[in-house]
Structures are given as structure tokens and as C-alpha cells.
């Protein structure tokens, strides 16, 4: 598979590989995909008390574009509020990395990973999240 430069950059120097403490109440963990399908992404986000994502880590079993998509979203979500992070779409990821059509599912998986990580954090903090209901900001493209 011939990849674009951005996939190769993220693949060769992946950002934010690692593990956060999944038992920390401020950490949300999203595990998506399936080994039988050839890709599994684990995205972890650490959310500060003001509702901002202060850290993000990933580990991915998958092809080059799955690894690149995960690396990219860890960079994108850092510094965003949870609601802002929810607006990241697979199309943005696919476009940024110039993914070929056969690799679009990697970007879908990365979007799912963000949503799963946030859902996990929300579940843990069901009471606390009542206070952080802000209007999602429109992303200017």
C-alpha cells in the first residue's frame, strides 16, 4: 500500500504512545475494533476538572493507517473540551491523512475510539458531568 507523507510521518514517529491508569476517575478508556478484523485501538484521555482533555495516549494493533489515525487523534483531542472532541469526524481524519478509500475504516475506528473514551469517562463521572454541559462549538473547516 502506497501511503501519503502524513501517514508515514505518524507511523514512523507516532505521538503519545502509552498507557494511562484506567482506574483513575479522570481517565476515560476507549477500546474499539476487533483482532479478527485486523485492528484494535485503545485511546485513553485524561480530563482535568475544567473539562479539558489534558493528556491522551494510545496503543493500536493495526495497519499503518490505523496507527497514524490513532496518533493523529491523540494530538487533536489534547487541549480540547470533551464536547469539542466529540465533534471530530472520521472525514476530518481521513482528509488530514489523505487515506485511500480502502483505509477509511481506520478513520472511522479512530472517531469511535474518541467517543468510546469519552463515554467511559462520562460513565465514571455521571454526577460530575452535569456541571460541564456547554454548547458544542462549531468547527470551522
Amino acid at each position, binding site marked *: *500500500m502506497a*501511503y501519503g507523507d502524513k501517514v508515514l510521518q505518524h*507511523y514512523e514517529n*507516532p505521538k503519545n*504512545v502509552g*498507557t494511562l491508569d484506567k482506574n483513575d476517575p479522570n481517565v476515560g478508556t476507549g*477500546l*474499539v*475494533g*476487533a*483482532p*479478527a*478484523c*485486523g*485492528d*484494535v*485501538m*485503545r485511546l485513553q484521555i485524561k480530563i482535568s476538572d475544567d473539562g479539558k482533555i489534558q493528556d491522551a495516549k494510545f*496503543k*493500536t*494493533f*493495526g*495497519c*499503518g493507517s*490505523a*496507527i497514524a489515525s490513532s496518533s493523529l487523534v491523540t494530538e487533536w483531542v489534547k487541549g480540547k473540551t470533551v464536547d469539542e472532541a466529540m465533534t471530530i469526524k472520521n472525514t476530518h481524519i481521513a482528509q488530514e491523512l489523505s487515506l485511500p478509500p*480502502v483505509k477509511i*475504516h481506520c478513520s*472511522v*475506528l479512530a472517531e469511535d475510539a474518541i467517543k468510546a473514551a469519552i463515554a467511559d469517562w462520562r460513565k465514571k463521572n455521571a454526577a460530575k458531568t452535569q456541571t460541564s454541559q456547554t454548547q458544542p462549538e462549531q468547527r470551522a473547516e
Partner: protein
Amino acid sequence: MLKLPIYLDNNATTPLDPRVLEAMMPYLTTEFGNAASRSHAFGWRAEEAVEEAREQIAALVGGVGKEIVFTSGATESNNLAIKGIAEFYKEKGDHIITCRTEHKAVLDTCKRLERQGYRVTYLPVEKDGRISMDELRAAITDKTILVSIMFANNEIGTVQPVAEIGALCREKGILFHCDAVQGVGKLPFDVEQVKADVVSISAHKMYGPKGVGALWVRRKPRVRIAPIIDGGGHERGMRSGTLNVPGIVGFGKAAELARTEMAEEGLRTGRLRKKLQDYLFAHLDHLELNGHPEHRLPGNLNVSFAFVEGEALMMAIKNVAVSSGSACTSASLEPSYVLRACGVSEDLAHTSIRFGIGRFNTDEEIDFVGRYVVEQVQKLREMSPLYEMAKEGIDLSKIEWAAH
């Protein structure tokens, strides 16, 4: 000095041996005659060269030159063998037996025949990739006209019990086609010993040029084949079309080299494969060898590196040319059907890499590849959530994964 990238995909194709190119050169330049031209010296010399190549190729498989039909490659040879026999013997029966790990040129040919009304049995294989003789025996009916089983598998290198298959077919009066592309020139293969009736061979898997192959067709007792290409009646009417003289000359030379050097080369590539295999298994855990531990092509090593996706590993070892059974390397998004037929789970099939060691690989290259692969697998496993979970003792098969 080590020259990068290193070519370790000799099951896909092999480089042209310089001695083969040398033999071909006159026929790419001054000796351009059409081998079918009977009226002048240009044609006579081309024909003479083709006839010599026929003998060289036949000698490699223990046949005679007159039994060689030249084709454009092994895909055409397989098509011609199976379609040609099915057509010619259709009054006798309509049943064909093959196996699930055959090359697509055999499987897709059989599927087309099924759509035309033939019946095809696709035999399963054991975990090591070999068919069971009992299952073959049980599949034979009084309508079976052909058994098509390969000599050695292109992905996992497993060598089928071809002599047993040939003996059974002879006993039952059924024709035996053997796609011997991967094994011929690497391991001894004799049409009399195997009792084969038709055999597919390709030049570019044995250091010859691409675009030329052959079908060996038994003359005693005579096997009949209906042509799939009509025209000037070349190759005793079985395959019309002007002969690819330079390609055929190169094929002949490649076959002669393979015949005379096979014993030494098989030992050498087998030793290099063993060296790579031993190094990988000594330095990494969670590896699975795919294919048969002994009955395999000497230079073929197919390994599943659990928790590391095959395409990602190929990108990580970009200085080594190999191939993978991962879905991500194909347009279909399905992992290797050969590994699946051997009962390899989908998740492990996604992590498989095929190393194909050939004539021109060196000890230095194999040492480098061993170290490089170990280092990159370790790096990717550090990035793999599955490896982390496995180390924590989590049973990955117990997790409810959301298939996508």
C-alpha cells in the same frame, strides 16, 4: 557491504539469473525469427532454440520435450489444464477434485466450471496444509475425471503428498493435474515417480523471465486437452499463438540451471531458512510457524507474529521485501484464505509474514533480517494494546469485540 532493500519474496517471483539473460540476448536481438517460419533460416534457428528449451524443461521434470506446451505463464497453464481436460472428457464425467489452498488460478477456474455445470469438491487441509489421503479417496466418484492438487503451496510452502495422490489417481483411472510452479526447480519432481498427467510450470519462479510458462502433458498414455485459445494450431493444436522465443530460451536455460544446481541450492536455502526461523523463535515469544515443519519448500518461512498486524510490520521492516497474509495488504479486506483453510484464526492470519529465501540471498542478509525483524516486532508490540493485555493475563478470546 549489505545492499538495501533486501529481496526476500522469492515465492512471488525470482530475479532473472544473469546466465539466463545471457542465453536470451541473441533471441532479443539478432535471432528474432518466428519459430513457425519454415521457409528460411531465421525461422529454423528460432525453432531449433525452442526445441532445445523444450528438452531442458522436460528434463527437469523427467519428461520428454514433445510433452511440453508453452504458455504465457502458470495461470494460463492451470486454466488450460483444467478447462481443457474438463471440456475433452465431459462425456466421461463432470466431477473435479481440488483443494482449498490451491492458487486462485486453479480455484477460480474451477468456480467458472461449476457455473457451467461441472461439480467440484474443494478438499479441506490439515493444520499443516496437507490434504488427507482418506478424504481424497472418499471424495472420488465414478464421475470424477480430474484431481488437481499443487506440489507446494505458494504462501505456506507446504508440500503435498503428490506421489501418493498420483498413485491413487492412476489406480482409479482419473487424471492428475499438478500445479508444480512453486516446487519445481526447488525440490526433485519426476512425472514418472509422481504419476502426474499434466503439470504446470513457470519460468519466473526459477530465475527465468516473466511471461512464459509451460504445461507438461503426458503422451504415454496420451492425455487429451481441448485448447482454450484458437488460432494457427501451434503447440500441437493445444495452444495457438506465436512462440515467445526469447522467453522460452530463457526458461530452458533456467530449467537447466535448476536441474544441475538444485541439490546444492536446496541445502543452502534450507539452511538459511532454518537460521532465520531459529533466530526469530529464540528472540521472540508468541510466534506461530505456518505450514508444515518438514514437508515444505526449503526457502519458505511463514510466521505469525501475534499482536502485530502484518502490514504494519511490513512498513516497519521496509528495507526487507516480504509479503503478508494480512487483509490490509489486499483489496478484499479478508485475511489469507490459505491460512484460514489451515485453521489459523483470523486474528493470527492478520499477523502473518512470508519470507521467501532464494538463490541470491546471503548469510549476511539473513543475519540482518533476523535482528531487524526482532527489533521492529518488539517496538510494535510495545504499541499494541493486545500485547499489553496478553501480558496482564487477559484472555483476548473472552472479550466481546465489536466486529466492524
